[in-house]
C-alpha cells in the first residue's frame, strides 16, 4: 500500500539479549507515528531494519508495499532517513549539502523546493556557511531538509530532538507538521515522553518490546489504574518513603514538584483517606489530575518487568 509501513514479528539480536523481540505495527499513509522509549530500547535497530541498512533475524516488513529484504533498492529511493547522529558533510556549505543530497536522488534543489521552503527560509541567511559551523538547531533543520529534498514517500527520523532544549524541540515539531501535512508518512523516535502528544499514534517501546500502540489520547484514557496526584509542604522524599509502605499504593513516583501514586481504581478514596491520616505535613490533592503518557509508560514498564522476573 502506498506510503504505509508494516512490520510483522521483527526480531533481531546482537548478543544473547534480543535488541528487538517480535515487533508488530502498521503506520498508515500520512500519519506521524512515534516510537517512544529510552536509550537501548531498540528504536535505532528498528529504524535501521526498516530503512534496509540492517537485516532482521526473523519477521517481515514492508515499506510502501515493498519488502525490506528483497526490494531494498526501490525502498532506498523512496524514503528519507535522518539518523540519530549528525551525518551531513561538515566541510560542505548548507547549500552544497542540499544540492549534493538532491543529486544523489537524481533531483535538484529547485524541483521539490516547496516541500522545504518553510524550513529553508530559516537556514537561508547561513547558506554559505559550512555545515560543521552551524549551531545544533540549525544542523538539525538542515538534516531535515536533506532528508526531504527528494520528496520521499516515507520519512524516518531517528531521535531528531535528543539533547535539544524544550523551545527548539517545539519548533522542530512545528516544522515536522508542515511536512506531514503534505502527505508524507513520518516515523519518528524520541526518548521524551511529552512528545507523544505530537504524534498521531505512538508505540511505547522498552527492552526491544512494544508495550502499547495507540493514539496518545487512547493510551492515556485507558490507563487501568487509579491515579492520585498530590503536593506536600514537608520533605517530599520522606513522604514518598512513607507512602511506599502503604499496601494499597502500588507505585509512588516523583513528578516534578508533585507525587503520583497509583492503586486499584476502586481503592482510590480509601487510599486518599489513609494518606491524609498518615501524613504529618500539609498535603494538597489535585482532584482534576489525569494520567499523562509518562504515567502510562511507567505502569506498562513495571508490568513488563514483573512479567520477565517471573
Amino acid at each position: 500500500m502506498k506510503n504505509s509501513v508494516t512490520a510483522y514479528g521483527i526480531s533481531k539480536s546482537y548478543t544473547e539479549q534480543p535488541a528487538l523481540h517480535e515487533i508488530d505495527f502498521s503506520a498508515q499513509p500520512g500519519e506521524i507515528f512515534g516510537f517512544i522509549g529510552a536509550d537501548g530500547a531498540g528504536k535505532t535497530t528498528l529504524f535501521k531494519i526498516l530503512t534496509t541498512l540492517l537485516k532482521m533475524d526473523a519477521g517481515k516488513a514492508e515499506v510502501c508495499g515493498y519488502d525490506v529484504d528483497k526490494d531494498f533498492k526501490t525502498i532506498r529511493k523512496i524514503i528519507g532517513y535522518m539518523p540519530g547522529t549528525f551525518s551531513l558533510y561538515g566541510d560542505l556549505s548548507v547549500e552544497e549539502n542540499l544540492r549534493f543530497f538532491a543529486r544523489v536522488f537524481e533531483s535538484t534543489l529547485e524541483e521539490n523546493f516547496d516541500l522545504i521552503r518553510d524550513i529553508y527560509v530559516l537556514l537561508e541567511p547561513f547558506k554559505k556557511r559550512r555545515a560543521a559551523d552551524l549551531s545544533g538547531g540549525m544542523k538539525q533543520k538542515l538534516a531535515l531538509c536533506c532528508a526531504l529534498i527528494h520528496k520521499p514517500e516515507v520519512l524516518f527520523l531517528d531521535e531528531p530532538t535528543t539533547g535539544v532544549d524544550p523551545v527548539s524541540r517545539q519548533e522542530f515539531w512545528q516544522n515536522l507538521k508542515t511536512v506531514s501535512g503534505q502527505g508524507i508518512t513520518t516515523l519518528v523516535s524520541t526518548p521524551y515522553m511529552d512528545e507523544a502528544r505530537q504524534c498521531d499514534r505512538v508505540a511505547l517501546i522498552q527492552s526491544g518490546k512494544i508495550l502499547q500502540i495507540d493514539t496518545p489520547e487512547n493510551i492515556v484514557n485507558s490507563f487501568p489504574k487509579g491515579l492520585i496526584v498530590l503536593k506536600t509542604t514537608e520533605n517530599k522524599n520522606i513522604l514518598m518513603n512513607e507512602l511506599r509502605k502503604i499496601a494499597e499504593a502500588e507505585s509512588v513516583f516523583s513528578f516534578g514538584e508533585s507525587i503520583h501514586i497509583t492503586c486499584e481504581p476502586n481503592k482510590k478514596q480509601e487510599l486518599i483517606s489513609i494518606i491524609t491520616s498518615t501524613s504529618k505535613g500539609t498535603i494538597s490533592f489535585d482532584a482534576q489530575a489525569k494520567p499523562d503518557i509518562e504515567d502510562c509508560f511507567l505502569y506498562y514498564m513495571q508490568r513488563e518487568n514483573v512479567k520477565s522476573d517471573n
Partner: protein
Amino acid sequence: MSNLIIETENLTKKFGEFTAVDAITFDVSEGEIFGFLGANGAGKTTAMKMLCGLLLPTSGKASVAGYDVYSQSEKIKLNIGYMSQKFSLFADLTVWENIEFYAGIYKMKPTLIKSHGAKLLQELELEKQKRRLIGTLPLGIRQKLAFSIAIIHEPRLVFLDEPTGGVDPITRRRFWEMIYEASSRGITVFVTTHYMDEAEYCDRISMMVDGSIKGLDTPANLKAQFQSKTMYDVFLKLARKSV
C-alpha cells in the same frame, strides 16, 4: 551565611567577536542542588568548562571549591567530580578497571582506591559483577555506577552534565534519589538538564539566555516571578524572548 563553594563575578568568555558567556555573576552554597538551565547555545557548556578548570575565562572572577579558575585549575580538577551522559564509563573495561582508572585520575592512593572501591561495590551490590565488562551491564546499573565513581574521591562538589538524557523514566527517578542521597551527605550538586520536571527537584535554578543569567532563584520563586504554573512555562517565556 553558609559557605560558598562556587563564586563568580562578571565571568566572561569570548571566542573572537562572539561572547559565549557574558558577565555572569552567581554563587552556589555548600550542599545545594543547583540547576543550570538554558537553551542550546546559551553558553551553559562554556560556563561549565570554565568552572571545571578546562577553559580559561576572558575576564571576570571565579573560584570553585576555594580555588581560583585562572591560577589553580589543576587543584579544581582534583577537587570536583564530573559526570555526563555522553562522557561516562568505558564499555570495554570491567567494573573494577573503571573504578581504578577514574580513581587514578583523581590521584587517589592505591590503598584508598581499594577500600573506597570495595565500599562502593558493596553499596551498589555489585561485588559479584566486579570483573564484568561495563558494556554487558544494564543501562540503569551503569548510570548508578558512573555517578558513584564520579564521587569516589569524596569531592565537595560534583558537576552533572545532562546525566539523565535518553534514560527511561524509572531509571531517571532512581538517579535523582541518588542525587538527593549525595546531597544529604553534604556534596554540592551542579546539574544541567533538558527535563523540566527535574528542574523542580533543584534547590535553586539559574536560567541562561544568550550568554547571560536571566533568572536565578528557587523553582517556586521563579514560577511566581514569571507568572508560570510550571518550570516548562518559565523556560519558554525566558528562552523565547531571545528568539
